[in-house]
């Protein structure tokens, strides 16, 4: 049951604890550049868990636990006020939130390294499938807040239900994180965050509700680290992380607006990926290697659900110019890259779960302003701009008999719900799946923009719902039914006090694709 890949020597720990109080600390496994013990002039740490705790990527027997030590998170060096030394951080997993006698089922020690902004990614194994756990950290005598997490059901088992939320786009300056408060209160089994966790761009200067310390565009490791730290000072975001395991992917603003495989320097990619990894509950398999990061991955939830988490940024061809049909439909262009596309299509050949869900970044269904096949007045950054990839993947799941496909999307700062078709210009083309698009947590601020016109909706009859308010989507999945509730913040994200409320509910029956009001 216990898993301790880096056991803390008792003598070392006692010395460390003693030294912590006296002004020196022992650091098992510390890098050669760091002092073995805290030397003169290195003070005891202030409370270092100002960025909270998180968990992610659960399996039937484990989960990744995350924290990042930062007693002064807004200090501008990017290290959150931590000294230039590595620090031993203990972690515990328990079956109850009080960590009472007999409740602790796993524990260990990780080294929070200065070179990785004192982030901690612990991967306990040996946990029981399909159950709730609690976890915490300790560093230099300080105890972290307690987080709640959930392991995936046992392989081959069919759970009665899965409750999950998904969200995206949380511009720090443009609103309060009331939506995260709603997610935390829901205590779901899983949270998917589908990109734009931070915004790299220059401060608007408007400071709708709050402002950045570093107002210039983030494009270095120090600046990205600082930007993440400032976002993570938000208590509602911390609460949502502590409430459930998250599955995270990045979109564009974790690096730069609308980036693709060719328009960023290796140095900037490396800096952005490193900071993303340091600040997310990701496994070691996702640790960046130079200017690359293996972000696409799969998670199984018994025989009920299978999540395919996609990366539609790192391998995509440059965006087409507007209205350029020949480029947008060029089968040689890709949004996913050949390797990821094959990885996905090969998975479609097996059907280990009742539901398949693609967790990804940009709008999948077609959105065509005039409804005419020859004009391509569509988004060039979304799957519309890479229509051949979309066609291959959609046909791929149809031809391979994937039973129930649901695409989960972020990016566009509105709620949307859509039926998926093989040919959107043919309004009687069979429905082959469902797309649920979450609005932003805050990006776009107050919202309330104009709704699509009746003419636009007539050109896109597969679109069943849209709402320009901030919020998130919460969903319940059973063997027979997917229920999605589109949650909105009311009165708005710029109000210091607000709540969340359901705006619309849809259902999808297993074996019968298509959105139904519920």
């Amino acid at each position: 049951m216990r898993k301790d890949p880096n056991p803390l020597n008792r003598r070392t720990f006692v010395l460390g604890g003693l030294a912590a109080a006296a002004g020196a600390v022992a650091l098992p496994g510390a890098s050669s550049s760091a002092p073995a013990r805290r030397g003169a002039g290195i003070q005891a740490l202030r409370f270092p868990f100002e960025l909270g705790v998180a968990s992610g990527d659960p399996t039937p027997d484990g989960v990744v636990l995350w924290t990042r030590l930062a007693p002064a998170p807004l200090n501008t060096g990017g290290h959150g006020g931590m000294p230039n030394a590595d620090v031993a951080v203990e972690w515990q997993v328990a079956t109850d939130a009080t960590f009472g006698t007999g409740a602790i089922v796993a524990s260990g020690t990780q080294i929070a390294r200065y070179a990785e902004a004192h982030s901690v990614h612990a991967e306990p194994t040996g946990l029981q499938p399909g159950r709730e756990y609690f976890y915490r950290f300790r560093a230099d005598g300080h105890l972290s807040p307690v987080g709640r997490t959930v392991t995936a059901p046992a392989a081959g088992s069919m759970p009665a239900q899965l409750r999950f939320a998904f969200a995206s786009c949380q511009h720090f300056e443009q609103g309060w994180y009331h939506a995260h408060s709603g997610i935390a209160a829901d205590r779901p089994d899983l949270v998917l965050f589908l990109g734009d966790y931070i915004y790299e761009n220059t401060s608007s200067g408007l400071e709708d509700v709050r402002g950045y310390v570093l107002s210039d565009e983030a494009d270095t490791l120090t600046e990205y680290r600082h930007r993440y730290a400032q976002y993570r000072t938000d208590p509602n975001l911390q609460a949502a992380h502590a409430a459930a395991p998250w599955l995270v992917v990045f979109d564009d603003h974790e690096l730069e607006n609308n980036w693709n495989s060719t328009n960023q320097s290796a140095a900037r990619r490396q800096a952005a990926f490193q900071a993303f990894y340091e600040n997310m509950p990701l496994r070691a398999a996702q640790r960046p290697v130079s200017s690359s990061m293996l972000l696409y991955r799969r998670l199984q939830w018994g025989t009920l659900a299978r999540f395919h988490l996609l990366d539609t940024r790192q391998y995509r061809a440059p965006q087409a110019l507007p209205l350029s049909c020949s480029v947008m439909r060029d089968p040689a262009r890709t949004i996913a890259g050949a390797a990821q596309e094959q990885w996905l299509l090969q998975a479609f050949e097996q059907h280990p779960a009742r539901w398949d869900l693609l967790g990804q970044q940009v709008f999948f269904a077609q959105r065509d302003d005039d409804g005419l096949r020859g004009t391509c007045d569509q988004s060039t950054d979304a799957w519309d701009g890479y229509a051949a990839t979309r066609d291959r993947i959609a046909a791929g799941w149809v031809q391979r008999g994937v039973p129930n496909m649901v695409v989960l999307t972020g990016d566009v700062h509105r709620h949307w719900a859509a039926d998926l078709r093989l040919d959107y210009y043919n309004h009687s083309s069979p429905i082959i799946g469902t797309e649920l698009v979450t609005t932003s947590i805050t990006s776009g601020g107050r919202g309330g923009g104009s709704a699509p016109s009746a003419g636009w909706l007539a050109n896109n009859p597969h679109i069943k719902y849209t709402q320009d308010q901030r919020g998130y989507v919460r969903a319940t999945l059973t063997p027979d039914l997917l229920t999605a509730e589109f949650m909105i913040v009311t009165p708005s994200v710029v109000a210091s006090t607000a709540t969340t409320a359901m705006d619309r509910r849809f259902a999808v029956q297993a074996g019968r694709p298509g959105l139904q009001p519920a």
Partner: protein
Amino acid sequence: MRRRVWLLATAVVAGLLVPSAAPAVADSSQCSIAASGAASCAARAEFVSLGEHLLVEDRVADGHSAVARYWLKGGTGPFHVWNSGGAGTTVDHNLELPEGSWIFYQVCVGEFGLRDVWTSTCSAGVTDYA
């Protein structure tokens, strides 16, 4: 047993030493930097932990104001404390922060009338604790 070790270690520390919850640290201060026609340290701010006072001093008769901007634990800020009283004056801003919280602050030169902070003069900033 890992949990037992954890408790033992704590006991050893508690039995031999009586450390304070946090180290005693002198009150922090910041100086604005020279830029945009403002002299070095034309504005100065100091945080006094006892009672959580942020003092903002205008130190140069340059026709400009001193301003501190600060962020607080909980993801809020920036808040601004202006001193438009002229050279040699100090504004005392009482924050009344809860115990265990922190403040990150910078000090800058600016124009009070336009509420224009000259960000190029802002100090790097420092975190201090209630």
